[in-house]
């Protein structure tokens, strides 16, 4: 803008100076030649008067006087009688000179002749004197062109001065014009006080700015909403473009991929994690195929599901969902193991039953032995029923679907009942059972608590030594009620401590048959405890005995 104003200003100055100088020169020149002619006329009148009074002698006197002009006297025949510049011998007849011829005819003649050297011209004025001779006066001046040429230096000087001035003015003016535009507050376009001509523009900017602000806000909100939703997803979410650049990645995905949030959007996913499984899934999806794969990294299992986003038959991007299925896999494994174990445990008594029954069916049993075989079948069947009851109880506890109500109850009384009930078994093993402690109340399902204590005591008696003791104690503390069952039995090795609550786990595999149990006792204890928000802890020394604590929270 500044440059444009400056250049047009310079052009204007140039044209103006050139035009005005040339016109001025022309006008001045005309004025000058007019003056000269008048002066020559006067001179002619003087000389004519001089000649009239003094005769040709007068001419000799003016020889030096009129150096500017050339004075010639010519007779009527054209012969030169006098010339103040050139010797007479050099001059020829002047009769046919236009001004002389004119003067001879009309009494007065004028002519302009360009001289041999360009750039000057000569004016001739001839008058016929009363005696018939012709007086001619000639004066040489510069031509118009010469006058113009003469004025060029001054023209340049004027031009330079004015140009300097113009540049200065142009700069100054441009600055003044531009300043309000530069100082426009585009944040608030309508509040500016500036040229009226700018108002439509400012209004338009104002409208567009509002529109852009609104759109940015909408986009921002959309983005924030999207991020808020995806950030809190438990599943890992990874969105890629069609070249594998990361467009979005949430917190869970970063955690699963063990990566940091990328500094910039659009970097290749390999920068997050270079595992082959991710590559495989991502590349397949980029090619336009959905994939679902299971992968194991260290001890964790992940399920990856990649879906291409296809528009007009072209893959525009890929969505990858990463799920941590470690827990699920583990539960799945436990379930598989459990059903395998149950089947095995059920098969053992069933094989026995089936064997005895077959013998009976084929009448291979002596009549007097039938009661023994029937008793064995009954025994095994009872064992199976116990096992199935235990399995059902466990699955109920697992699902937290116990069809019994919680109520307030006396834990000590319940422990005493169990002690009495298990007396026959204890006597049989020669073990002394004692129950003592404070009267303490807890909230729970009586049938379940009864089963918990029974299972603990049962174990304590079964895995005891002859003449050993089992002491059940109930103590009420500040934080809750503590039930402890201590025995003087075989104890549990350290490496098995963690595992004894697992289903079907037995420390001493060889003794499982003669003690009878189902292998689910302690697992049930643990489940019942957790159903009542109680904690189970275990202290044990091999060969000396085991003490199991169950701490119940105080009833609300």
């Amino acid at each position, binding site marked *: 803008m500044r440059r444009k104003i400056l250049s047009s200003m310079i052009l204007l100055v140039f044209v103006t100076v050139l035009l005005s100088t040339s016109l001025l020169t022309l006008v001045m020149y005309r004025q000058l030649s007019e003056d000269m002619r008048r002066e020559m006329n006067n001179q002619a009148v003087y000389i004519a008067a001089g000649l009239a009074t003094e005769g040709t002698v007068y001419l000799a006197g003016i020889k030096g006087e009129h150096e500017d002009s050339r004075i010639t006297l010519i007779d009527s025949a054209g012969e030169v009688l006098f010339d103040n510049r050139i010797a007479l011998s050099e001059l020829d007849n002047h009769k046919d000179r236009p001004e002389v011829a004119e003067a001879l005819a009309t009494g007065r003649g004028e002519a302009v002749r360009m001289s041999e050297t360009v750039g000057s011209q000569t004016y001739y004025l001839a008058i016929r004197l009363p005696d018939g001779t012709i007086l001619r006066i000639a004066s040489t001046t510069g031509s118009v062109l010469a006058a113009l040429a003469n004025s060029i230096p001054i023209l340049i000087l004027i031009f330079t001065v004015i140009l300097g001035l113009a540049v200065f003015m142009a700069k100054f003016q441009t600055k003044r014009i531009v300043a309000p535009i530069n100082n426009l507050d585009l944040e608030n376009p309508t509040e500016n006080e500036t040229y009226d001509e700018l108002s439509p523009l400012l209004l338009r900017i104002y409208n567009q700015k509002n529109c852009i602000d609104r759109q940015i806000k909408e986009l921002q909100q959309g983005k924030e909403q999207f991020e808020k939703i995806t950030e809190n997803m438990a599943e890992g979410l990874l969105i890629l473009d069609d070249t*594998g650049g990361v467009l979005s990645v949430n917190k869970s995905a970063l955690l699963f991929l063990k990566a940091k949030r990328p500094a910039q959007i659009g*970097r*290749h996913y*390999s*920068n997050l994690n*270079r*595992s*082959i499984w991710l*590559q495989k899934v991502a590349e397949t999806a980029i090619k336009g195929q959905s994939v679902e794969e299971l992968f194991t990294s260290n001890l964790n299992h992940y399920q990856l599901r990649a879906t291409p986003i296809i528009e007009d038959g072209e893959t525009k991007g890929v969505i990858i969902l990463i799920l941590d299925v470690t827990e699920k896999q583990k539960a799945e494994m436990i379930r598989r193991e459990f059903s395998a174990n149950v089947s095995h445990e059920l098969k053992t008594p069933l094989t026995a039953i089936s064997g005895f029954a077959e013998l009976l069916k084929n009448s291979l049993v002596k009549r007097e032995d039938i009661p023994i075989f029937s008793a064995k079948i009954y025994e095994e069947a009872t064992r199976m029923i116990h096992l199935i009851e235990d399995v059902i109880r466990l699955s109920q506890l697992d699902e937290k679907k116990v069809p019994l109500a919680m109520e307030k109850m006396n834990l000590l009384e319940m422990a005493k009942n169990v002690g009495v009930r298990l007396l026959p078994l204890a006597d049989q093993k020669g073990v002394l059972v004692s129950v003592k402690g404070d009267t303490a109340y807890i909230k729970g399902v009586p049938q379940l608590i009864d089963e918990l204590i029974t299972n603990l005591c049962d174990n304590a008696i079964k895995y005891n030594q002859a003449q050993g003791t089992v002491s059940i104690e109930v103590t009420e503390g500040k934080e809750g009620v503590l039930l402890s069952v201590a025995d003087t039995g075989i104890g549990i090795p350290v490496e098995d401590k963690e595992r004894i609550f697992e289903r079907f786990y037995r420390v001493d595999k060889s003794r499982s048959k003669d003690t009878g149990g189902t292998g689910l006792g302690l697992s049930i204890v643990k489940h019942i405890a957790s159903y009542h928000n109680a904690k189970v802890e275990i202290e044990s020394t091999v060969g000396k005995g085991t003490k199991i604590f169950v701490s119940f929270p105080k009833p609300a």
Partner: protein
Amino acid sequence: MRNSFDTQLEQLNTQLIQMGGLVELTINSAVKALIDQDTEQAKKAILAEQEVDHKEKEIESLCLKLLLQQQPVARDLRRISAALKMITDMERIGDQAASISEIVLYLSDAPYIKKLETIPQMAVETIKMVNMSIDAYVKNDLALAQAVVAADTIVDDMFLLVKSELIDLIHKDATTGSQAMDLLMVAKYFERIGDHAVNIAEWVIYSITGIHKNIGPDME
């Protein structure tokens, strides 16, 4: 033109990272195969090594294309030439891992003469070094690259330990000699993998700083 150059550089970066992932897979499988005497994993490692070779060729031609067509200078030139050198070392790591797997296949019929102790530790250390060197490239992390160079002595010391253990074993029972030699080879391969990881790390350092241990400061 510049834009396509940047795209190609990013592509080179991606390919290198993916090759790194492949190399890691190869060595991880080889180690699993070795420790569990798992022939499936050994075969997997040998297959992955072929992919590593393939990837090397691909990256090599990309590097040459970049050098010839774009005539990079300064940092870009360093990055490309470092990549060109790095892939050679990565490919060598893949080879060594495959060689270990071949020994595992060969030894799979008989149990090991002794419970492997130092060799798995070596394996863990070298895997760590390879991981770190590739991470250093991915993250442009000078400190991490320097850590790899420093870690080499650990693996070297472990190799000497394995060697003396095996010598003791042969002293006690000469019949173990044949397998002891194979195990020594395995240990040597791990030691070499460690060296290649150091090479990679040195090229990463060169790409970042312009200084390589063996060639002096870069003329820039």
